[in-house]
């Protein structure tokens, strides 16, 4: 991999980390765990459309690892990884289908990121009770997805990150 590519991937990863940190600092909902703005998805979706699935996956994994190591714990890592993986998988799938714009892909990504996290939490706690949070998480995932998707679409159109 050429050094320019390394530098650009590093840039994207750093950006994703900053966005993760930013949304952790702004408390959205204390009552419902997992209500996040999903800002880091902006970088993931940008990479997905401008570079490709593998790059987006590597980026997402790097972000999850680094953020959990820096700010979180083992549980946070598990939830984050589950959410990010499910989200990316769904996004890649929908993108390959071709009928959705980045906005739709982002909405699906946002929703499934939250769903993934809740599923893992339910497995860890061995309870189905957490399902009560699904409505709120689906709505917030949708809202965040739309915002990130619209911003992402603009960036994808106008920003050239790799030659």
């Amino acid at each position, binding site marked *: 991999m050429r050094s320019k590519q390394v530098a650009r991937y590093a840039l994207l990863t750093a950006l994703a980390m900053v966005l993760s940190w930013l949304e952790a600092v702004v408390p959205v909902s204390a009552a419902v765990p997992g209500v996040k703005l999903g800002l880091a998805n902006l970088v993931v979706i940008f990479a997905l459309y401008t570079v490709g699935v593998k790059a987006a996956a590597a980026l997402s994994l790097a972000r999850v690892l680094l953020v959990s190591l820096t700010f979180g714990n083992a549980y946070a890592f598990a939830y984050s990884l589950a959410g990010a993986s499910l989200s990316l998988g769904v996004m890649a799938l929908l993108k390959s289908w071709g009928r*959705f714009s980045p906005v739709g892909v982002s909405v699906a990504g946002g*929703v499934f990121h939250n769903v993934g996290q809740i599923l893992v939490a339910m497995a860890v706690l061995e309870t189905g009770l957490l399902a009560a949070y699904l409505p709120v998480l689906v709505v917030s995932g949708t809202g965040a997805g739309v915002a990130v998707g619209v911003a992402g679409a603009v960036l994808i159109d106008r920003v050239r990150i790799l030659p």
Partner: protein
Amino acid sequence: MKKWKYDVLLTGSALLAALVLWLIVGPGEKGSWAVVTVAGKEVARYPLAEEVTVRLGERDYNILTIAGGRASVAEANCGDLTCVKTGEISREGETIICLPHKLVVEIAGGEGGEFDAVSG
């Protein structure tokens, strides 16, 4: 507008799904019991009608408080304190969750389970 069709459909169905989920698993009416489970197994249940403060757990603990028909976790040593920040719950289906301690406090209605109140 045509190229947005699928996106709008997707977003719409996501919101619709949220509504359906809300109706199925969303919070209900005012409950009667605070049921405490650890790693999925019920360890205690306390009637919401009685005021009580109880320490759940030994080395890893959460302090459950019931007052005014509402349950909350006043204090805990779990590190992230999401359980404390959740605040008060009182409706059936509402929960306070402490992930590091695998603790869930859920509001249930109706008659009691096997115990009235059990410690440990």
